[in-house]
């Protein structure tokens, strides 16, 4: 049977003010940690990983980053969403010389469930939806983010 991924509004943040991408990652990872989805070690892991393997995706007008860390730092799977007040530069996942001006962060906390590939695949399908990305980038509060994204990941 088809499942629908349930987002958690306690790990959705809108209007994050950050000096750079690492600051934004630190804030959002701490949100995940405080909600219990990840271990304390996740916060450092996600920043360390971003420095070696950046995750900015050139998704068109509205850049997206999909930071993630190894499964050992995760308690239970969740996708946190951070909408930045002003875009910050992430390095391009496929080319470290290039940067992506990013307004939307999907922080993936994945443990090793067998549906993970299906889940990620369904999630990534949404990155092609320019209308959705535009609306997310311009969302004013958590409620509107939930309204936009709820039911979008079927796996």
């Amino acid at each position, binding site marked *: 049977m088809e499942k629908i991924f349930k987002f958690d509004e306690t790990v959705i943040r809108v209007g994050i003010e950050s000096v750079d991408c690492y600051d934004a990652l630190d804030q959002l990872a701490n949100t995940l940690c405080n909600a219990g989805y990840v271990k304390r070690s996740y916060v450092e892991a996600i920043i360390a*990983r971003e420095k*070696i*393997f*950046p995750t900015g*995706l*050139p*998704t*068109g007008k509205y850049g997206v980053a*999909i930071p*993630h*860390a*190894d*499964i050992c730092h995760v308690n239970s799977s969740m996708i946190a969403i951070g909408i930045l007040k002003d875009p910050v530069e992430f390095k*391009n*996942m*496929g*080319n*470290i010389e290039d940067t992506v001006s990013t307004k939307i962060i999907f922080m*993936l906390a*994945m443990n090793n469930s067998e549906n*993970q*590939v299906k889940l*990620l*695949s369904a999630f*990534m*399908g949404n*990155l*092609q939806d320019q209308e959705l990305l535009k609306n997310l980038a311009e969302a004013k509060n958590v409620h509107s983010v939930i309204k936009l994204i709820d039911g979008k990941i079927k796996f």
Partner: protein
Amino acid sequence: MVYKVLTVCGTGIATSTVAAEKCKQLLLERGLSINAIECKVSEIEGKISVFQPHVIVPTTIVSDNKLCGIKKFPGLPFITGIGMDKAADEIAEYLKSIKE
């Protein structure tokens, strides 16, 4: 002939698995027989020697000196969907040009 595609990501939380499946699907649609596997960037040298891929499709940054001369194509289009058909066309064209 079955063409071998190796996708590579930074850590194994399956971003490359997603890209691998998409890439494989699009190459199959282009009439090619494909065997696609994925690995972490830390495993790449070992995987190349065992699997001997025809092409490497990284979704992360991989330095060229680790590729043992195997041609690389960008994997990001298979995640973002942007330029995906063009990327698949380029890989297909290259694979078809390989002689056994």
